């Protein structure tokens, strides 16, 4: 490299590819909706969700509450649980405990 040469180097990072997915429409109120509670498999996630259920039930009338635990915090949620919650619930809250 002589005095007039610039050092040309490369950016080692990559940008994430945006996911091809849209957010579900948000309900105007939780009254009359089916609430899903999905624990991520960590200890106490179900405890946290139960507290949330109690708090929310004081404020809203849910037509149903569906609780699931994906069982293993280190793995993706099994497809059958995802499909079932998508079918049965209008809104789903997921929680991690520890």
């Amino acid at each position, binding site marked *: 490299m002589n005095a007039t040469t*610039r*050092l*040309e*180097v*490369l950016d*080692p*990072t990559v940008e994430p590819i945006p996911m091809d997915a849209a957010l579900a429409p948000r309900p105007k109120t939780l009254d009359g909706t089916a609430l899903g509670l999905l624990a991520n498999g960590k200890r106490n996630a179900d405890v946290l969700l139960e507290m949330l259920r109690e708090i929310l039930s004081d404020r809203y009338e849910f037509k149903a509450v569906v609780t699931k635990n994906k069982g293993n915090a280190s793995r993706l949620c099994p497809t059958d649980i995802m499909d079932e919650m998508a079918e049965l619930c209008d809104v789903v809250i997921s929680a991690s405990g520890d």
Partner: protein
Amino acid sequence: MSTQPLTSRWLEFDDPTEAIEFYFSMGWTDGLPVVPPTAERVRRFLEHAGRSPSQIVGEEPIRGRVITAEKVATNAVMAGCLPQYLPVVLAAVEAMCEPQFNLHAVTVSTMGAAVLAVVNGPISRTLGLNSGVSVFGPGHRANATIGRAIRLVISNVTGAVPGILDKATLGHAGKYTWCIAEAEDASPWEPLHVERGLTADQSAVTIFPGLSPIQVVHEVAAGQPGSILTGLSEGIFLTGSNQEEIVVVLTPETIGHMQSAGWSKRRVKELVFEETQRRASDRARSGETAASSNDGDKLTGVAQAPDSITLIVAGGQAGTFSHIIPLWGGGSNSRPVTREIRAPEVEAA
């Protein structure tokens, strides 16, 4: 040779020191200086490995990252690799993108796992990978830079930057670099990659999601190798119970004692498995919550089966030590992966 252009963003600097400081400022290093990855050097690496820049090596689906050969080569240059090391790095990256390795979870978890790469076969000798004295220590370029390249790909390309996505509570030194060769010449047993389905004349890299290792010192009376098992079982005990896989690195001298007892690799696994059986109540006393069973007298081992104990031979000739490497999540939520290293140029040399 590919004439395909490189597509990474280019940066210009007056001198290498300025570039090195810029890479620090961008968080593109592991905390140590990197070799500035010039386009010319990245091209040379790709040509050596016979890869096109845009070739997809793997994908990290959770974060939507596509890992191209160009990005792997760029990070290998930064790590200080030689061009002939790139096929090993590429094979390791391919391996860690296999779904069963669960790369996202492994690289962000509070448990702080690192990717341990174990190289087997002819390429380890061609590249001068260390399998002997100070095998996990510094001083060997191939070991140090291949392991570092894997780490830089994890942080720069997949985005597992410490403190941002990587939430390791403690982490460990293997997260800087962690690559060894198995000491096949010092082992009476079949090499790791042969045990995992390849042939001895193939070159391969096996990656493990390794947690902090535990070194055990064995005091062995001549002709009484049983004390090795006792020490090993004490060392392994606290790593957990019923694990799907755990790695134990045995030194040549330790192996020598086992060989003199006539133990095969399979026999050693069986003996360790048997030696680590403990009552649930003993495990509960050691603080293991999973063992809070009503059946306090029930025996469980550290491993699910003898074959859950992976034995690797490495280290200097002197010293009866074992080196226990617990795996992230007990080896269940991330499965080790073996990949053949395709390096025609190196093998022909």
